[in-house]
């Protein structure tokens, strides 16, 4: 901290001293210089430690200097600002690394061949192979889950918003909230216990789809409910005043008005369940071969494929796992961005 900042008295006597704008940079430079000095002097070889020492010196230096020049309260304010920026930077590192590593390592094994071939006759330690069977499985399972969950979810939301009064509606609202928090593996265990252990059905894509539907329903209910509440009551009243029955009002007026928001909610829910591994692991079992029929026999799925390839542990298998992770992230991200774009495009005029 060789750069002792200058105290500048302002013309107004109402304000105390003020650090010049370049003071933080000067303190930062000083902190880095001292940290490098300590690092070289003490022979610390880890650059991470140098950085940490510099960061601590920077925060301390800011506090001490600001406390002397500006007063204790301003010093605390500056330290809080530093810490908040620090939080942001600390959090960005792992999240950016996650995206960066997935793209970098995933690109290695990712090509058209990878998308259009299965793992049929490919051993774990052989190169080649692909995710066609897993993509197919994921699309079928997620599709079936959507077909089950969306009608139930939307109808439940309609009940809650348009009809719901009293105890039943209260109970449904509460349990939808609770259902949102069910761990995916518990949903998987439930379908396992009643579909496979009690009814004696085999492992199949459909069993997995049922568990995924359970995870999807509360999300659909919640988002649809929010959207239906945004539909202005004047529209309902106008329709009802024309003598249109309530159910036709809902189908012809309320739903079309909120369809954009509902679509967004459904797409976000699909994105959420597309990445679920645990229920698929318990119920679909996984296979290396192409199985078109979700109702008969084990299928593969993208998240499960990633897990299996990672567990195989060989270099080529790990490359395949990264490439599949890249495909999965792309799939989820495209759904998310599309959903948000639709939300912005179709937003009801009365919204925020």
């Amino acid at each position, binding site marked *: 901290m060789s750069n002792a900042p200058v105290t500048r008295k302002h013309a107004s006597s109402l304000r105390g001293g003020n650090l010049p704008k370049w003071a933080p940079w000067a303190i930062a430079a000083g902190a880095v210089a001292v940290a490098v000095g300590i690092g070289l002097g003490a022979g610390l070889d*880890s650059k*991470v430690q140098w950085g940490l020492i510099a960061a601590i010196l920077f925060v301390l230096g800011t506090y001490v200097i600001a406390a002397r020049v500006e007063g204790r*309260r301003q010093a605390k304010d500056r330290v*809080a*600002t530093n*810490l*908040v920026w620090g939080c*942001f930077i600390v*959090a960005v590192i792992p999240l950016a690394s*996650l995206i960066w590593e*997935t793209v970098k*390592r995933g690109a290695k094994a990712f090509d058209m061949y990878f998308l259009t071939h299965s793992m049929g006759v490919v051993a774990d330690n052989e190169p080649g192979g692909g995710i066609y069977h897993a993509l197919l499985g994921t699309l079928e399972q997620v599709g079936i889950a959507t077909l089950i969950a969306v009608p139930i*979810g939307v*109808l*439940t939301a309609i*009940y*809650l*918003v348009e*009809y*719901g009064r009293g105890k039943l*509606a209260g*109970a449904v609202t509460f*349990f939808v*909230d*609770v*259902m949102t*928090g*069910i*761990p995916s593996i518990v949903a998987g*265990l439930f379908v*396992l*216990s*009643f579909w496979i*252990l*009690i009814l004696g059905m085999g492992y199949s894509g459909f069993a997995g789809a049922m568990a995924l539907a*359970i995870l999807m329903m509360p999300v659909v*209910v919640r988002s649809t409910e929010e959207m239906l*509440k*945004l539909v202005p009551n004047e529209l309902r009243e106008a329709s*009802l005043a024309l003598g*249109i*029955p*309530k*159910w*036709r009002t809902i189908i012809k007026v309320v739903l079309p008005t909120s369809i954009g928001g509902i679509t967004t909610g459904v797409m*976000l829910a699909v994105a959420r369940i597309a*990445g*679920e591994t*645990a229920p698929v*692991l*318990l119920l679909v079992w996984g296979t290396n071969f192409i199985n078109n029929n979700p109702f008969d026999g084990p299928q593969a799925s993208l*998240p499960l494929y*990633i*897990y299996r390839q*990672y567990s195989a542990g060989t270099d080529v298998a*790990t490359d395949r796992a990264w490439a599949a*992770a890249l495909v999965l*992230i792309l799939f*989820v991200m495209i759904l998310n961005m599309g959903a*948000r774009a639709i939300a912005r495009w179709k937003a009801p005029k009365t919204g925020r």
Partner: protein
Amino acid sequence: MDISTQSTEAPPPAPRSSGASQKRATRGATRPGDRVFLALSRGSGILLLVIMAAIAVFLTYRASLALSKNEGNFLTTFEWNTNVLPPVFGIAVLAFGTVVSAVIAMALAVPVAVGIALFITHYAPRRLGGPIAYVIDLLAAVPSIVYGLWGAIVLVPHLNGLFGWLDHYFGWTGIFTWQGGAPRSMLTVGILLAVMILPIITNVSREVFRQAPQMHQEAALALGATRWEVIRMSVLPFGRSGVISASMLGLGRALGETMAVATVLSPSFDIQASLLDPGGGTFAQNIASKFNEATVFGQDALIASGLVLFIITLLVNGAARYIINRRKEYSGANA
């Protein structure tokens, strides 16, 4: 159109929220179409309740089949041997591991998430805040298996340095001793879970901070408060319950996380004092990794442990919802 029934279909006068509490003299569905539609939508709501009940009933039933033959104490046994006769299994290790990893994750994630939320709402340049919030929204959707893959392949090798440092300076505490095994321990799991729940906690906290009454903040500023004092005196007190419930949602996710734990942890069925040495396990991880070799009885035993997880997450989520709902009531008066 049957005009005579029209009067019963009086539109709800309350603005917007049709869930308002006014009593309507509605005889509801008088037309066949209405009756069918009401039945369908009410039926869907009831179906959801039935599913929740069915989850509890079926899990309890299968769990009881396994528990009746268990020779060990389900709560205190340090073993999971379901394929031997007589079977002995217990959840002590799993409960311990689940709680420890979740506590580490919360301790790391909550302060940082609150910091990021404050950064987005109060510190970042306005032009940056929106895009950052958007990106964090997207990150909340990254599947857990991808976090697991990243944790196992990228994060784990980077932790050697940290573990060595902790062992060197804090080894005397007993919980940071390290015998030099691969850093696939409870602390690793905690760190990875913290990264995973960060986006969710950030998102909810950010929404709450954004709703903090502008008037309070401006009043504090007018009294000469610094930015930090504004946050400490008007934003944080307003957002406290919101942050708590956001943390509970994150906690619920951390407790039930399966694949990220299963890929990162080297499990073992014992409790270790050290957080750095590999070993331990969590409910969800144990189910995922034991499932493939399990017999029907073994699956029942796993279902029993899943039932415990289900109850724990129900309690945590119920508490979170309770806090959120309580906040809703007075936030209207405040804002």
